């Protein structure tokens, strides 16, 4: 139907894009993860499994990975707990103000990540807004130290940053529920609460899964929030990767950890996609 030249012309740009930005970097990453680094800080281009052995042998890597997953899991739970009611309100009760509220959810996404992370630093620090207020009203005598430089600060900040990512797919799923199903449920004698649990929530699960995946995957790979607000106890796996590729100069080990995370994330995306498909009805 189309000429050969035309077909080549339209497939070439995406092909180049995929090659340059995905294929080459990931191949390099894969190669690096099987190379090693000499004591004189040069890369030895011979194949070895040492990096993966190191990863399993040294506790700090796996510990940090599990801590990151635990932080990401908490962020996911809090994002859903905050995001679902917000999305539900938006979809079912906002009425004429729907667009306004929708924009209010979107706008923070336009604000620089750094600004939002620093804002929390200002709020949570020992001379921060929150501590000053607590002391001013005599609820505390001394600044609360656990507020900043802790997993708590990281979870709080990441929840703030990634909640919109949970809200949007849930909102989309709720918007797709035909309203006559809600009416049919009421008509058949179900109270609003029964209708929510028997009709609305089950039909919104694909959105919840998508939102949870967003929140979990994005916060698992986050390194700025733990860097700025995490302190030593709030370090996440990405911080280790950053330092391995930077100051520590151990690209091979960094590559091995990155690949493990990549595998983890891809598996998660795959599972969530499968679950979503299973739970969608249209």
């Amino acid at each position, binding site marked *: 139907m189309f000429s050969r030249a035309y077909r080549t012309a339209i497939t070439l740009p995406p092909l180049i894009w995929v090659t340059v930005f995905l294929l080459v970097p990931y191949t390099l990453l894969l190669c690096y993860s099987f190379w090693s680094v000499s004591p004189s800080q040069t890369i030895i281009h011979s194949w070895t499994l040492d990096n993966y052995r190191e990863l399993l042998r040294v506790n700090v890597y796996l510990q940090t990975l599990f801590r990151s997953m635990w932080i990401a899991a908490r962020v996911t739970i809090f994002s859903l707990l905050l995001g679902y009611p917000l999305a539900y309100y938006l979809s079912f009760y906002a009425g004429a103000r729907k667009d306004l509220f929708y924009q209010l959810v979107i706008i923070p996404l336009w604000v620089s990540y750094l600004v939002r992370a620093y804002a929390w630093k200002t709020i949570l620090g020992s001379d921060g807004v929150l501590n000053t207020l607590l002391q001013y009203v005599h609820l505390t005598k001394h600044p609360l130290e656990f507020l900043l430089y802790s997993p708590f600060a990281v979870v709080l900040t990441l929840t703030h940053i990634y909640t919109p990512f949970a809200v949007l797919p849930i909102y989309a799923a709720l918007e797709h529920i*035909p309203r*006559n*199903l809600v*009416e*049919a*449920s*009421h*008509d*058949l*004698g*179900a*109270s*609003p609460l*029964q209708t929510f649990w*028997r*009709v609305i929530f*089950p*039909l919104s699960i694909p959105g919840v899964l998508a939102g949870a995946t967003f929140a979990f995957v994005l916060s698992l790979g986050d390194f700025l929030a733990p860097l700025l607000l995490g302190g030593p106890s709030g370090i996440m796996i990405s911080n280790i990767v950053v330092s391995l590729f930077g100051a520590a100069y151990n690209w091979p080990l960094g590559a091995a950890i990155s690949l493990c995370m990549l595998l983890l994330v891809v598996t998660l995306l795959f599972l969530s996609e499968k679950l979503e498909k299973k*739970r969608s*009805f*249209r």
Partner: protein
Amino acid sequence: MCSPGLRRDWDERSPPQLHLLNMATTTEPVVRSEKSGLQPLLAIRNVAKSFGKNPVLRDISLQIAEGEFLTILGESGSGKTTLLRIIAGFESADSGEMLMEGKRLDVLPPYRRPVNTVFQHYALFPHLTVEENVGYGLRVARLPRNEIAARVAEALAMVKMTAFARSKPGKISGGQQQRIALARALVNQPRLLLLDEPLSALDANLRRQMQVELKSLQREVGISFVFVTHDQEEAMVMSDRIALLRMGELEQVASPREIYSHPATAYTAQFIGHTNLLRGEIKSGVARCKSLSWRVGLPEGPALFSLRPENIRIVNPAADSDANVVTLQAKIQHQAFHGATELLQVVCADGLALSVRTATRESRQGDVQLEFFPADAVPVRESPEKG
């Protein structure tokens, strides 16, 4: 899908269903006249509703009797669906009230009303199986598990969908979804079943078949049906009474035969069936319309008559005509073949144009002599344009 033959066979075989569904003991509907002293099942009193500045229903008063099949008929935008939604509780009236067996219905939320609805697009829950859809109302009412199972099985048998119990609604046809929607509503034994154009999505043949089935199902279960449609033929076939709605007001409420043979207004006469409207003048007991005249017992003044095309007959000019009939000469302009009958467009010498329905014959041309009985020219009220 079941044929009328299968239908009969099922009627004989399954009387236990009647018992379990708690159906009325008589198969004939107990239609009570609006004027009788008996309490109606549902009384709608002076209900009005506007959307913004747009009045949708104005001062609707209507009664529905126990076991009655009432059709709310109207064009799109006449307010018929809004009226149904007010009865179901999805909309609230701006004024007026509704009483069910003497108790206020309009103050209850939809989930407390002993009313169930068959939605236009069925509104089956996509995440539940056919069985779970039908059992939904019983489950939220927290009935015992075995009772739910028994009633669901019976309702599915009633609509001949037992084989599909475990299918998801997305996997069955429109006609089958229709049956499930019906079973899902009836299994709750509502006092009143509301049907919002439930047949509009079906093709013509299936539709006619479902009309017959629905009507006999309604007779069996003895539940009052309020059926909304824009299809006057459907309304005529199924209803005990038709409530014709026009621009938010009830134009006429009567049995199909009554509304057809004695339309109260010009609009009713034209909307239900096909008619000729004759505009004339009554003077000293004689109605005159162009060159036609006949004796009437009506007060003086301008008058409007509805004359059905089938009430005008073609007669042999040579034959002696009855003194009681009105005769006229006309010229055939157009002949439309409709199968068993044909519709002729004729024009009289004085310019009066009429439609005449006759049994199908060879093609006709030229002048004909026509006659009709004065009693068939039914006086109707004008239907003024409303804004």
